């Protein structure tokens, strides 16, 4: 394999900068029927919480033009079941597994992080941006102060590097990113889904039991790109960017805006091979442009 796409996210070496995003990739198993996961730069687990969660009731998916609204509500088996059932397999893979962690209050975040200290995770993605859970979740990600505060507490007890996943729904993302950096975050990822709403006029009722839901997919890309650019300008820690990336051209735009790695979310549903096609597209691009490494075009905007 060529080294043109090799990417360092701090000290962590990714074969390429392409990482399927949390919640769109399960724990990887489902996609093994489509390709070898070791082709990926990394992969990100479904959002995990201390205790198992059954997620939201009612309709969980709703389409919008070129977008998808979801209200999954962090359904997950809990950290312990993850460590027992999923981690042995993920650990055996030659790719970087990122563990995404959510919580409902400070205590549940910290206990979850402590449990993860027992395993050899390369990178934690601290999810303070899930719009689909009532308590905690996005609440921590809305202001620089709360985001900085929880980041500091998590970083203090975690044995692993922590990347904080930001919400597009709160205060200025640049301010929030700066606060996370100052609190010891070793990376930033963004964007989580944009909070939206759907009404079924025929039923004269809201679509989602949880009232609001999170929008993702191609429809959000321009917003995600703008926020990625703002954050990359604001901090010195690496950024893992996402939001509507569906082709290698999209991926390139985020890298030009300053992203070190990129995550692939909703498009996995449309084309399970998308991450592989994006990797191949980036390889061909580097070849054609005569780049020794993709980093040569990183942050040129």
């Amino acid at each position, binding site marked *: 394999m060529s080294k043109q796409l090799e990417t360092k996210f701090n000290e962590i070496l990714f074969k390429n900068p392409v990482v399927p995003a949390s919640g769109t990739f399960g724990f990887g198993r489902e996609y093994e029927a489509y390709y070898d996961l070791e082709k990926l730069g990394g992969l990100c687990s479904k959002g995990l919480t201390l205790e198992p969660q059954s997620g939201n009731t009612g309709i969980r998916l709703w389409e919008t033009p070129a977008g998808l609204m979801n209200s999954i509500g962090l*359904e997950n088996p809990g950290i312990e079941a993850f460590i027992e059932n999923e981690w042995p397999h993920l650990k055996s893979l030659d790719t970087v597994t990122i563990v995404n962690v959510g919580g409902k209050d400070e205590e549940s975040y910290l206990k979850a992080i402590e449990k993860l200290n027992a395993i050899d995770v390369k990178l934690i993605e601290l999810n303070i941006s899930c719009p689909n859970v009532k308590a905690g979740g996005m609440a921590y990600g809305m202001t620089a102060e709360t985001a900085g505060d929880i980041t500091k507490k998590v970083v203090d007890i975690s044995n692993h590097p922590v990347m904080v996943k930001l919400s597009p729904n709160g205060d200025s993302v640049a301010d929030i990113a700066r606060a996370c950096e100052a609190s010891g975050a070793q990376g930033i990822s963004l964007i989580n889904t944009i909070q939206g709403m759907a009404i079924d006029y025929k039923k004269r009722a809201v679509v989602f039991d949880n009232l609001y839901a999170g929008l993702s997919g191609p429809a959000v890309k321009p917003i995600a790109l703008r926020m990625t650019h703002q954050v990359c300008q604001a901090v010195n820690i690496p950024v893992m960017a996402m939001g509507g990336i569906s082709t290698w051209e999209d991926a390139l735009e985020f890298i030009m805006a300053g992203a070190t790695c990129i995550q692939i979310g909703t498009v996995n549903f*449309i084309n399970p091979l998308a991450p592989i096609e994006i990797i191949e597209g980036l390889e061909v691009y580097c070849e054609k442009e005569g780049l020794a490494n993709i980093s040569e075009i990183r942050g040129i905007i």
Partner: protein
Amino acid sequence: MAIIRSNEFISPGICKMTVAFTGAVLPGQFFMLRAWDKDPLLSRPISVHDYEAGKLTFLYQVVGKGTEILSCLKAQSEVILQGPLGNGFPQIVGDLCVVGGGIGIAPLYYFVKDYKKKNPQGNCRVYLGFRDSSYCVESFNAIADEVNLNIGGMITDQLKVASNEVVVTCGPEVMMKSVAKATPAENLVYVSMEARMACGIGACLGCTCATKYGNKKVCKDGPVFLSDEVFYV
């Protein structure tokens, strides 16, 4: 990617599409179909209506944007298929009673055909219910031992399940619930569930269905479940 052999309306709002496909396909499994770029965004889950080597058939109702686009595709054009997905119907050894409502009859044809092939001695009775006009009744007549048709009424008013029959039903959830209710507790009842799907393979948790044994994924653990597993409250 698959080439469309034919794609025609067989009844108002009901379309039948046959595509070239090879590989193993089980009754009750489904495919995710798309023939568009990013709008609509998601692929559409459609059950296998019939399959014989090289030839896969879907029967679908035009209800919105996706199925509308599918219905306009011409022979020789391409449709993107992902699948077959899901577990499909169980293998039945005893006698069979099949209840289909509306477009819910779609997966039942291949199922009955396969059952009769594997159980030539087995008895298969079919109930088909439609709101206004019927379709595919002839095809069921050709393969089942008995076909009961109901248009505009309640299929369960007619339904009589024999003690040795396994019941398999697909249709609107209210209908499947009343089929389960009208069936003696000793008989097994299998239902084919529907849910909005994004990935179709078990990765997004968008299609979760609450069951007696906790959450299950309609796409990967189903779409076929035992009725007392899903209709447990």
